[in-house]
């Protein structure tokens, strides 16, 4: 019999918001425009803006977070993070927030595993640059060069004792990490999993997307008739997934339930999507969740703002939600956050959970002339009510990879008779 899996904590690091609450407020405000990255020069590229986290601000926030008594961190366990590995700093900050929000103590963390995703994840660039200029890379760079290094640092620093995995499969990476975490709980490998992604935008990625002519010079305008492309972002998003009985026993508050996952491949083209793959992923998620399509109130789309992606996505959505009178609200949050590459899916899963909690879909400020999609979308300056208690989060990746996650609202369920609940009431 399958186990119910709930979300009991969120952690978010983006350019405009550190923390899930701040992130929710940022989305409700409609977001803002991209800005020049602080860590490399964009003069030689066509696109000039991004949504990149300020590394110094993130490190300062991390130092503050690590000092929180409620986290009960073993200082000797916290791995020092090499200055060039801000990806790990973002991931650790988001993880600490999620753990704190979920009220996981040291024993809980001992039994929790980690399933993370990244596009970069290690100090590869620093190591390679040292080789090129003939200098000797320091020991920390050598130790933490690999793509899974950020994940290893996080696992060590918060003393996680459960399963470990790191994914890097283009833009579905962190949703794949969430899916793997879900399965570890189902299999009984761990009652708790820390799942999500962390990324720091690299100049080479920025250059690559510019070379592909996939980036808009001004802003990301998902589903806009005049859209020209994506805008890159970076940061981290982490969800605490937990077996529902375990959460109830320790008096945890459930933010949402993860009820369905769908995975499919287009087998069509390396960069151009084909609707069929996403259609099948959505149908598979609906089947696993054992729900009718009419129960989905909202779809957080991949919505990169590229001409090809958004059109393919609408076609796939239309194939699944084929009754034009009974369609969910759709939106993309990339107009407010940018595209966080491997981390994007986890950030959007978190945004979907927040939308379920608020029962509102945030506005899309940058989408001023909506394409004819046949789906209701929020306006530029106000949220749209979310009438139903189920929502879907979709992600598409290079090579035709597709994943669909379905969340159900949990309405802050907590076991009223658990000792931990009584403890919290008294404190």
């Amino acid at each position: 019999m399958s186990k119910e899996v709930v979300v009991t904590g969120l952690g978010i690091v983006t350019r405009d918001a550190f923390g899930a609450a701040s992130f929710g407020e940022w989305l409700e405000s409609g977001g803002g425009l991209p800005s020049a990255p602080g860590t490399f020069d964009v003069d030689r590229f066509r696109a000039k803006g991004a949504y990149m986290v300020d590394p110094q601000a993130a490190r300062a926030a991390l130092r503050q977070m690590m000092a929180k008594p409620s986290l009960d961190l073993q200082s000797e366990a916290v791995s020092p993070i090499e200055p060039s590995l801000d990806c790990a700093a973002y991931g650790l900050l988001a993880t600490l927030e999620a753990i704190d929000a979920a009220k996981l103590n040291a024993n809980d963390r001992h039994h929790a595993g980690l399933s993370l995703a990244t596009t970069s994840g290690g100090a590869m660039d620093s190591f390679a640059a040292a080789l090129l200029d003939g200098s000797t890379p320091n020991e920390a760079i050598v130790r933490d060069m690999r793509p899974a290094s950020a994940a290893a640092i996080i696992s060590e620093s918060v003393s996680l004792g459960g399963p470990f995995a790191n994914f890097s499969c283009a833009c579905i990476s962190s949703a794949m990490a969430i899916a793997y975490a879900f399965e570890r709980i189902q299999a009984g490998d761990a009652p708790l999993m820390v799942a999500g992604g962390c990324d720091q935008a690299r100049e080479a990625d920025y250059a690559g997307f510019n070379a592909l002519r996939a980036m808009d010079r001004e802003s990301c305008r998902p589903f806009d008739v005049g859209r020209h492309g994506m805008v890159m972002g970076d940061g981290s998003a982490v969800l605490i997934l937990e077996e529902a009985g375990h959460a109830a026993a320790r008096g945890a508050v459930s933010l949402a339930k993860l009820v369905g996952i769908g995975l499919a491949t287009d087998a069509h083209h390396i960069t151009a999507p084909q609707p069929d793959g996403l259609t099948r992923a959505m149908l598979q998620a609906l089947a696993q969740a054992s729900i009718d399509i009419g129960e989905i109130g909202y779809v957080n789309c991949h919505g990169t703002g590229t001409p090809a992606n958004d059109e393919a996505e609408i076609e796939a959505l239309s194939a699944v939600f084929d009754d034009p009178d009974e369609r969910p609200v759709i939106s993309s949050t990339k107009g407010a956050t940018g595209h966080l590459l491997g981390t994007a899916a986890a950030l959007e899963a978190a945004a979907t959970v927040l939308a379920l909690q608020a029962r509102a879909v945030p506005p899309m400020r940058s989408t001023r002339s909506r394409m004819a999609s046949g789906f209701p979308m929020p306006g530029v300056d106000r949220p749209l009510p979310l009438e139903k208690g189920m929502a879907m989060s979709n992600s598409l990746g290079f090579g035709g990879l597709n994943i669909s996650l379905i969340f159900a609202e949990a309405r802050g369920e907590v076991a009223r008779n658990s000792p931990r609940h009584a403890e919290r009431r008294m404190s």
Partner: protein
Amino acid sequence: MPVRLSITAALADLPAGAERTPGPANEAFGAFTLRRLDDNGELPNSRERHTRLSRRLEKLIERTATMAKLLPDQIAGTETGLVSGSSYGCSSVMEEVRRQLVRKGSRGVDPIRFASATHSFPLSLNAIRFGIRGPCAALVSSEAAGLEALLCAADWLQAGRCERVLIAAYEDFGDPVAAHITAAGKPGAVNEAMALVLLEVESAALARGAAPLASIEGFGTVGRNFEMDNIVTCMRRACGRYDPEAAAACLATPRWSWDVRMKEHEAVESLDRQGLPSIAFKPRMGDCLGASGLIELALLLADDELFCAAPLWLINALDPRTGGIITGVAPSAREHLS
């Protein structure tokens, strides 16, 4: 009720000098050396989309399909998935893109080369090549990445997402990966390698006339603390329906990680396995890093006499930093139920 899973093909590509015979688990290993695969002159040319890795994977899929008697229209479609595990992934290709940028500026970045720098590119290109439309994912993880990929594939099959999964595990030693391995300074030989295993829902495999080589009996996920109770529990879980006392052990943990090896040895010995062997391929083969576990599995299955000498084999791949995976694999025709 869990679905029965069977391996119907398994192949391992290793470089020259890497022996395919196991030895005792505590056998010593030699000085550091880096070994590369010989592509037999079949490297992709500059006009092709293929990278070295995606071309290797393509060839291995063709050979695996032949071995498993899997027809092209059986590979194609929604019932086949693809997953890979590696610790360095396609890092070398991304480094090429970065160097293009450094040396030639923004105009020097080849968009096609950039698209091939994602760690899932070898899978995606071959999904297109063979028409594979089931689930697809790439783990770029630990030195247990090969078995992590196997576990991911098992998840998909148990959830009914498809009927078969091709599981690849590999390491590629382009720049700067080779330099990093050398800088890490660990003893013993280190190999470029690629393994491919075909895991199927047993009923689907039998329905198409395949002959299972082995059944997957279970998995255990070992945490990074390597607590004895945890390792033993994981071994027992990996045994599935078999008696742990009937398990032989194939140890794919890095040979230089003394502490973890000692704990692993202690855990294996605690199972009281009636004199069944503990072997390791690494002392004579060398280390295959993230491809570990899957490489050892393929080599074990290739030696019919060895594999059938025990009712069950536990294959351990433990990364000293992050923990790892233990899987139980049984020769299909033998039963030794608890």
